[in-house]
């Protein structure tokens, strides 16, 4: 990170469930130890039914998401049909990999399309692409690998998936100094996108000592 650069410290997460995907994130943006934004929206739409979760440099991830958003718009207009999630993820990968020495961006792409249904794709720092049933990222994710591995089940219902995501992000926020604030979720299904806001005083509570 360059001096003065804004960091999405972060906990981000995406989970594939029966009828769609859930994306979730904390809301803390830091410059050093100062919290520049405590209500950040790290869940960015790149198409009607495709979202990305941003971690790493705020500037880098915003720029990349804007470019992919543009490409997906052109794709839709030129080809007359919405792009697959896989296509969006590949565009992110191409940008991150080709510019890996300049960028600091960890991105999770998730959405639903007609061909493959719901899917989650993880693109860590180097620009590799990983399709996974669920993905976690950002500095806070290191604290919840155990919890996620233990609690995840394939083909969860919407309510179960929401609870899983909320709990995981909450646990990460309570241990990671770079993650905090509120929890933002987005539920993406064929019927549309439902945004959920969990204020700081309504976070799931666990053992605090």
């Amino acid at each position: 990170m360059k001096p003065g650069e804004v960091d999405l410290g972060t906990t981000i997460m995406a989970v594939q469930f029966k009828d769609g995907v859930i994306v979730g994130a904390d809301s803390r943006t830091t410059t050093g130890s100062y919290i520049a934004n405590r209500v950040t929206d790290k869940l960015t739409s790149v198409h009607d039914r495709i979202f990305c979760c941003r971690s790493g440099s705020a500037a880098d991830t915003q720029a990349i998401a804007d470019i992919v958003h543009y490409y997906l718009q052109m794709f839709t207009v030129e080809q007359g049909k919405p792009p697959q999630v896989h296509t969006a993820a590949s565009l992110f990968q191409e940008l991150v990999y080709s510019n890996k020495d300049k960028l600091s961006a960890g991105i999770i792409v998730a959405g639903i399309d007609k061909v493959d249904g719901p899917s989650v794709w993880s693109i860590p720092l180097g620009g590799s692409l990983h399709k996974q049933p669920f993905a976690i990222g950002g500095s806070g994710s290191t604290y919840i690998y155990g919890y996620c591995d233990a609690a995840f089940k394939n083909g969860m219902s919407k309510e179960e998936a929401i609870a899983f995501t909320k709990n995981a992000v909450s646990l990460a926020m309570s241990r990671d100094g770079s993650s905090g604030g509120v929890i933002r979720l987005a539920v993406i299904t064929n019927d549309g996108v439902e945004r959920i806001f969990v204020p700081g005083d309504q976070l799931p509570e666990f053992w605090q000592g």
Partner: protein
Amino acid sequence: MSSIGTGYDLSASTYSPDGRVFQVEYAHKAVDNSGTCIGIRAKDGVVLAVEKLVHSKLLVPGSNKRIMTADMHVGVATAGLVADGRYLVNRARDEAKGYRDNYKSPIPGNVIAERVAQYVQAYTLYSYVRPFGISALIATYDKSGPALYGIEPSGVYYGYYGTAIGKGKQVAKTELEKLKLSELSVEEAVKHAARIIYTVHDEVKDKDFELELSWICERSGGVHQFVPKDLADEAEQAAKASLQEEMDED
């Protein structure tokens, strides 16, 4: 329906008073004087067949094929100036590869047809290039199934269940109209394509020809390939036999 475009036909960037671009129309003539190509979109695949006229006994059989592959799932047959055909297929290959690089996905049929058609159209705009002297049949097979597109020298293109280009296209299209194309299996389509090529071939004017047959279908694993020898030979024998029958009828 020929007419002389004296004065208005010297370059593609000139309209005639009745709104025609003669250079493009002349390009069509190059296509109409070439060996026939047929495309059939069947239920489960697409077939391309070419009447490759052989103008010398010195030529190695099977060389200078007119059916080419632009990607695993895209086949192209051209009628007209062979060199132009090669050049256009090269462009199609670049488009297909470029699409894969960008989107990590095989290029859909309708997309490659449009890209190639736009490219052909571009050559009808300027005086310092000449229009492509070919019509192309593009056969594709992707997630949405089989598709067949025909592109003309003007750059106009359509999706077809069955079509023909070249010398014998009128006779061939008449034959194709007799078939229920959307109900044919790809094996039946191969037989019909071979038969129709033999039907349109003019024994008097053009002595020797080679029949090129290719397909993309479920059976070929979605890959564009020349029809397997046994099926191709069978189709060719049946074609010759039916021609014999036709001649014997009185």
